[in-house]
C-alpha cells in the first residue's frame, strides 16, 4: 500500500497509528490496580476508603503532588508508624492508585457525580429551531409520504397553461430525458414545441450544501425551496451560445422536505413566431450532495406533493465540541457568539421581509401594530419554549415596541432580543428549577414545559410542536406514562428519522463521509460513483432496518444477508440487474453476508487501497460496536508494507507487526475481531482466498472476543461474528449508551448509575427494537434526574417574575 493514499485513520481517531488498549480508563478500572491491595493493607486504616478520611485523619486525601512526588513521599514517610513497610515499587504502585483514583484534580473531577450541565443549542439544534420557529407560523407541510418521484405536466405549447396546453400528466421517477428530434410523443406533440413542468418536493438525505445542475439545450428554470414569486435557483430561460449546463448551490437541512419546481420548454421564447428549427432536446436534473458525486437526483429523494418552503439559516457556525463522542454545547466561544449574533440578524431580516405572510397582516392595515406585537409575543413564547412571564414580556416585547422609531424597527429589536436571550440560546429548562410561582414549582412536580423541550430537543433537535405544547400547558407531562405517549407520537417524524440516521452513521464512524481510494490496477471497476452508490446503499439499509417493516430490530444491522444494489453496483458483487436498475434488496453470496459488517461501504472504508485492514475493522468493532475504550498507541507505527513480506497473508502480516508485548495489550482484542471479516476484500466482495502476486492463501477468518463479563466467544467468519454481536450484552450496552448521548447530549450517569443497565434490559426484552429504545430513552431523559439538583441561590425577588400561563397557548 506504500505510495498509495492511506484512507481514514483519522476516522478512527488514531491519526495514522495502530491502536492500543488503555489502562486504566475509569475509577472502576482502578479496582484492578495492584496499588489497591497495598492501599487497603497499609493506608485505609487512617485515610479511609478512597481517601475519604477517618476520625483519626479527617482530611480527605487530595492534593497536587505528581505521581513521582507522591511515590517519593510515601517511600520516605508512609505509613507513619513504619515507613519501611511501603517503599520502592510498592510505594510507586500505591501512589499511582491514589493519584489516579481520587487524589489528583483530574481524578476528583472524574469522581464528581455526573449532572445535567447548562448547555447552549448545538449548531444542528439552532438550525432546526430557526426553521421550525418560522414554520410554526406557516401551514404545516404534509407528513411522511411513501410515494416517490415528481408530478409531471406535459404541454403541447411553449408555456405552462393547463387550460390551453396540457396534454397529460403523470408521475416521473426522476428527470433524465432524451427526446431526440421527435419529442415525447409524435402523435400528440410537435417535435420542436412542447413544455414540461415537474413539481413536488425534494428530501435531502443530510444537512449540507447541495449543488443542483440542469443540463438542457433549451429553456429551463429550477426553483428549490422558494415561493413561486421569488427568483428561481437556476434561471436558464435564456439559452445562449453553447451553454447547456447550469449550476447553483443551496444549503438544505436534512430531515425536511422542500418545494421543487422545474420548468422546461423546447421552443423559441420571446416574440412568438413559431419559427423553430429541428433540434435535439434533452433535460436532466442532477445534484451533487454533500459527500456525494454528481448524479441524477434519485427517485428516493423526490416526492410528488408540495411542501411549504423552509427557512434555512445561512450564517455558518463553528462546529460543536464532539470530543467525548457526541455534539454538545457546553462551551461558548467568540466565533460561536459572532455566528449566533449574525444569525439573529439573518432571522430577524427574514421575518421582517415575510411579515405580511407570517403575521397575516398588510403593510397599511390599521391593526398592523397589534398584529406585529402579537406575532412578537408568540415568537418569543415559542423561542423560549415556555409562556412568558410579565417581566420577560416587558423586556423582550413591550419595551422594544415602545421605544423604536417605527414598527419594523420595533419588530427587529424584539427579534434580536429574543434570539440573543439565554432563554433561547441555552437549554435553561434543563438546568433551571421551575419558575417561581408556577403550579409546577408549587407542586414540586416536574415542569411540563421543560419536559416538553427536553422531549423535542431529544428527538428532533428542535422546539416543541403544537400537541406537545398543548400537553405542557395542561401540565400533562408529569408522569413517565404521559411522557412516553408523547415520545411514541413524536418518533414518527422525519426529524427523528434524520437524527437517528445521523446517529447511526456516527455510530458506524462514517458520518464525515470518508474519502475512499482504491488501487486502480486491482480494482479498476472502482470509481467515485461506485463509492457514492455504496454509501447510498448503506443509507437505504440502515433506514430499512430502523423504519421498515422488519420491526426496527437492532440485530438485523448485523444479521441481514441482503444488500441494496443498483444497476451500477450489481456487477461488482455478482448480481444480475439491468444497468439502469434503481436500488433494491439482493441476497448475495449464498447468505454469507452479515449486515453492516460485510456491507460494501463499510468493508471499503475499513480497508487500505489494495489490502484489507483487519486493524481498522477490529478497532471499529471493539470500540464502536462493543463499546470498549481504546487509546491511540504512544508511538506512531507505520503499517508494514505487503511488498516487504510477499509470502505473508494480510492476517499473518498484521499478527507479525502487532506481536510485541506492548502492542498485544490492545491487539489481543482488536485483531481477532478484525480477522473474522477477512472474507471480504478491500471493496467488500466475498473471497475464500487472498491472492497477491505469487502468494495465494486460503482465508482464515477465525476470531474471538472476550466480553467485559462472561466467557470468551469464538467465531469463524462474518456470519458467526454477527450471531455473537446480535446476542452480545456489550454491543447492546454500547448502542444504548451512544444513542442516549446522541439524543440527550448530557451524561447518562446524571440520571443515576443504573440507567444504562435498566435501558439495556428493556432494549433486550423488546427484541432490540430501536424505535422503542428511542421512546424508552426519552421517557427517562425528558424527566429531570431523580436525584435532587443542587439548590440554586435564591433568585432576587422580582414581583414581575410571576408567570401568567395563558389558557390557550399561541
Amino acid at each position, binding site marked *: 500500500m506504500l505510495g498509495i493514499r492511506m484512507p481514514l485513520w483519522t476516522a478512527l481517531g488514531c491519526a495514522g497509528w495502530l491502536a492500543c488498549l488503555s489502562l486504566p480508563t475509569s475509577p472502576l478500572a482502578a479496582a484492578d490496580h495492584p496499588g489497591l491491595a497495598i492501599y487497603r493493607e497499609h493506608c485505609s486504616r487512617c485515610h479511609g476508603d478512597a481517601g475519604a478520611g477517618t476520625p483519626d485523619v479527617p482530611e480527605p486525601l487530595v492534593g497536587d503532588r505528581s505521581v513521582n512526588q507522591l511515590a517519593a513521599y510515601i517511600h520516605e514517610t508512609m505509613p507513619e508508624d513504619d515507613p519501611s513497610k511501603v517503599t520502592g515499587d510498592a510505594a510507586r504502585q500505591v501512589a499511582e492508585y491514589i493519584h489516579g483514583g481520587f487524589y489528583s484534580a483530574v481524578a476528583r473531577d472524574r469522581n464528581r457525580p455526573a449532572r445535567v*450541565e*447548562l*448547555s447552549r443549542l448545538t449548531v444542528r439544534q439552532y438550525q432546526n429551531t430557526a426553521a421550525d420557529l418560522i414554520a410554526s407560523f406557516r401551514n404545516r407541510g404534509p407528513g411522511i409520504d411513501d410515494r416517490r418521484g415528481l408530478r409531471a405536466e406535459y404541454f403541447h405549447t411553449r408555456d405552462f397553461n393547463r387550460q390551453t396546453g396540457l396534454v397529460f400528466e403523470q408521475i416521473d421517477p426522476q428527470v433524465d430525458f432524451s427526446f431526440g428530434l421527435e419529442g415525447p410523443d409524435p402523435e400528440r406533440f410537435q417535435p420542436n414545441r412542447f413544455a414540461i413542468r415537474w413539481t413536488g418536493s425534494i428530501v435531502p438525505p443530510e444537512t449540507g450544501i447541495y449543488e443542483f445542475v440542469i443540463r438542457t439545450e433549451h*429553456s429551463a428554470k429550477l426553483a428549490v425551496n422558494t415561493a413561486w414569486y421569488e427568483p428561481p435557483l437556476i*434561471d436558464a*430561460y*435564456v*439559452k*445562449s*451560445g453553447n*451553454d447547456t449546463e447550469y449550476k447553483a448551490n443551496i444549503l438544505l437541512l436534512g430531515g425536511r422536505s422542500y418545494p421543487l419546481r422545474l420548468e422546461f420548454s423546447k*421552443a*423559441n*421564447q*420571446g*416574440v*412568438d*413566431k413559431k*419559427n423553430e428549427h429541428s433540434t435535439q432536446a434533452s433535460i436532466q436534473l442532477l445534484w451533487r450532495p454533500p459527500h456525494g458525486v454528481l448524479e441524477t437526483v434519485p427517485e428516493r429523494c423526490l416526492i410528488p406533493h408540495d411542501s411549504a418552503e423552509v427557512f434555512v439559516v445561512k*450564517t455558518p457556525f463553528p462546529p460543536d465540541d464532539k470530543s467525548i463522542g457526541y455534539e454538545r454545547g457546553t*462551551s*461558548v466561544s*467568540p*466565533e460561536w*457568539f*459572532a455566528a449566533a*449574533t*449574525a444569525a439573529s*440578524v439573518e432571522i*430577524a431580516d427574514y421575518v421582517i421581509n415575510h411579515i405580511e405572510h407570517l403575521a397575516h397582516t398588510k403593510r397599511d392595515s390599521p391593526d398592523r401594530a397589534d398584529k406585529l406585537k402579537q406575532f412578537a409575543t408568540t415568537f418569543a413564547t415559542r423561542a423560549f419554549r415556555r409562556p412568558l412571564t410579565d*417581566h*420577560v414580556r416587558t*423586556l*423582550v416585547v413591550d*419595551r*422594544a415596541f415602545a*421605544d*423604536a422609531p*417605527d414598527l419594523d424597527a420595533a419588530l*427587529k*429589536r424584539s427579534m*434580536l*432580543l429574543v434570539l*440573543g*436571550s*439565554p*432563554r433561547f*440560546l*441555552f437549554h*435553561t429548562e434543563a*438546568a*433551571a*428549577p421551575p419558575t417561581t410561582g408556577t403550579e409546577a414549582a408549587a407542586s414540586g412536580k416536574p415542569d411540563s414545559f421543560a419536559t416538553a423541550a427536553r422531549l423535542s430537543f431529544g428527538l428532533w433537535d428542535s422546539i416543541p410542536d403544537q400537541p406537545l405544547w398543548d400537553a405542557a400547558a395542561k401540565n400533562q407531562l408529569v408522569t413517565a406514562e404521559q411522557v412516553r405517549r408523547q415520545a411514541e407520537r413524536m418518533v414518527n417524524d422525519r426529524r427523528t428519522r434524520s437524527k437517528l440516521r445521523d446517529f447511526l452513521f456516527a455510530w458506524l464512524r462514517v458520518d464525515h463521509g470518508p474519502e475512499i481510494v482504491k488501487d486502480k490496477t486491482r480494482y479498476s471497476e472502482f470509481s467515485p460513483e461506485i463509492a457514492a452508490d455504496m454509501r447510498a446503499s448503506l443509507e437505504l439499509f440502515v433506514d430499512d432496518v430502523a423504519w421498515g417493516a422488519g420491526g426496527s430490530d437492532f440485530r438485523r444491522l448485523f444479521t441481514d444477508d441482503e444488500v441494496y444494489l443498483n444497476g451500477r453496483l450489481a456487477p461488482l458483487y455478482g448480481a444480475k440487474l439491468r444497468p439502469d436498475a434503481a436500488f433494491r434488496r439482493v441476497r448475495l453470496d449464498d447468505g454469507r453476508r452479515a449486515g453492516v459488517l460485510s456491507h460494501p461501504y463499510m468493508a471499503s472504508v475499513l480497508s487500505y487501497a489494495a489490502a484489507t485492514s483487519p486493524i481498522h475493522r477490529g478497532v471499529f468493532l471493539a470500540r464502536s460496536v462493543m463499546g470498549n475504550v481504546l487509546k491511540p498507541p504512544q508511538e506512531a507505527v507505520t503499517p508494514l508494507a505487503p511488498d516487504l513480506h510477499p509470502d505473508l497473508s494480510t492476517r499473518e502480516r498484521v499478527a507479525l507487526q502487532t506481536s510485541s508485548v506492548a502492542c498485544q495489550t490492545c491487539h489481543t482484542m482488536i485483531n481477532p475481531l478484525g480477522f473474522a471479516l477477512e472474507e471480504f476484500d478491500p471493496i467488500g466482495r466475498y473471497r475464500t482466498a487472498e491472492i497477491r502476486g505469487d502468494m495465494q492463501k486460503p482465508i482464515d477468518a477465525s476470531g474471538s472476543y472476550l466480553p467485559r463479563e462472561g466467557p470468551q466467544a469464538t467465531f469463524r467468519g462474518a456470519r458467526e461474528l454477527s450471531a455473537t454481536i446480535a446476542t452480545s450484552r456489550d454491543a447492546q450496552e454500547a448502542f444504548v449508551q451512544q444513542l442516549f448521548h446522541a439524543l440527550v447530549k448530557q451524561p447518562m450517569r446524571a440520571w443515576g448509575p443504573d440507567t444504562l443497565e435498566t435501558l439495556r434490559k428493556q432494549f433486550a426484552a423488546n427484541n432490540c427494537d430501536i424505535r422503542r429504545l428511542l421512546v424508552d430513552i426519552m421517557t427517562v431523559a425528558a424527566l429531570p434526574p431523580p436525584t435532587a*439538583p*443542587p*439548590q*440554586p*441561590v435564591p*433568585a432576587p425577588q*422580582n414581583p414581575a417574575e410571576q408567570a401568567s400561563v395563558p389558557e390557550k397557548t399561541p
Partner: protein
Amino acid sequence: MITVSRRELLRRFGVGSAVLPFLGNLPSLAATGSTAPKKRLVIVFSPDGVVKKNFWPTEPGPFTTLPQIVQPIELPPILRPLEPFREQLLMLKGVHDKVQGDGDRHMRGMGCLLTGIELFPGNIQGGGETPAGWSSGLSIDQEIKNFLQSRPETATRMGSLEFGVLVPNRADTWTRMIYTGPNKPVTPIDDPYQMFHKLYGQMKDRESMRSVLDELHEDLATVSSALPAEDRRILEEHAALVRGFEKEMASHHAEVAHAVPVLEQGIVEQNDQMPKISRMQIELVVASLAADFTRVASLQYTNSVGQPHMKWIGVEEGQHDLSHEPNSNEAAQEKLTKINTWYAGEVAHLAKRLAETPEPGGDGSLLDHTTILWTNELGEGNSHSLDDIPWLMVGKGLGFTMGRALDFKGVPHNRFHLAIAHAMGHTGLVRFGNPDYCGDGPLTGLV
C-alpha cells in the same frame, strides 16, 4: 483582475471576529495620502430611441457662451432641462452601434450597447431577425470597474453599483445591459429599499444591536441569578462576549462620514411611482459616490422595449407603442418628446444633486469629478436604427472638453468605449468588444 478579499480587508482594518458579520460601509479603501483626483462614471439608460429632430442640435458646435466669438447653438427641446449645465454638456453624434449578428435591433441595441460585441445565438426570438441569447462579452463599466478594483488607490467597497427603475422582473436580452463576462448578465437593483439595505444594512444592523444591548444584559442577569451556581459559569462567559461585542462596536462607531439618505417609506414598484423611485435611486447614487462606495454606477430606466405609461406628464400610452409610430404622426412625436424630456429632467436632477454636493477632500463638487453618460439602445424608435446612438455626457469627471456637440459621422461605438476607459485611467486597454470595430483606437478630439 485583482480584487481585495474580505479577509484582506479585515486584516487591513484590524477588526476582531465578533464584529465580522457587522462590518460594512467602510470608507474608501483608497490608500490614505493618495492625492490623485477621483474620476467617476455614471451611465444612465432610457429606452426606445429618441425623437431625433428634438434631440440633436441642427449642427455640431459649441453650447457654451465662451469664447464669445462663436454664437452658441441652441439646446434642442429635449435637452432644455439641462440648460443650467449647458457648459458641462458634451454630445456625440455619429457614434454608431455597428455590431451585427443574431438578435433583433432592440436586443442588439441593449446587449451590445455597452459590450460592443455580438450576442450569442440562442432561443430568444425578437420582432425580427434570428433568435439570440446573451452578450458574448463584458460591458465597459465592468471593464473599468475591474481595472479600478485591481489598484489599491482606486479600489472601493462596491466596485460598481447597478441601479434600476422599474426593470421588469424577468431576465432576458431586453432587460440586461451590464455584463461581467460572456453569458453573465447583471441584474440591476430597481428596489430602492433593497439598494439601501445593500449599502447601509450592516450599519443599520449595528444600530439595532446597539439598541438592544441594555435589555440583553438585564435578561442575562435575571436568567443567571435563577440558575445553580455551577451553571452560571457558561452564562458569565456569554455575558463577557456580549460586553466585548459592545466595546468593539463602539470603537467602529464613526464609520460613515456622510449623512445617510432618508427614503420615503412604503413606495411600491409600479408604473405610477416611477418619478418617486427615480428620485430615490438618484439620492442613493449621489450618496454612494459621496461616500466613495463606488466610482462606477449605472441607472437603467425600464428596459429595451420599455413601456412606461407616463401619466404624470399627460402621456397615457406606453412608450414603446408610441415609439413605433411614424415620424409623420405629430402627436406621437410630441408625446415621445415629452417622455424624453422627462428623462432629461431626471439626468438634470442627478447633475444638480451632484453639483450641490461638495467633493469630499477635494475641490469643487461631485459633478466636477463625475461624468454622467446618458444613452439609449436605439438611435430612433420607429426605424430601429442603431446609428446615431444618443450619447450625452454631463460633468467633468472624464476630463473631456465640455460645452459642445460633436459629430463623428459614423464611427463604431467601441472606440468611444475605449476613450472612456482611457479617460478613467485604464490607458492600457487597446481593444474592447469586437476588435474589428476598434480600428483606430480610442475616439480622439474629446479632450
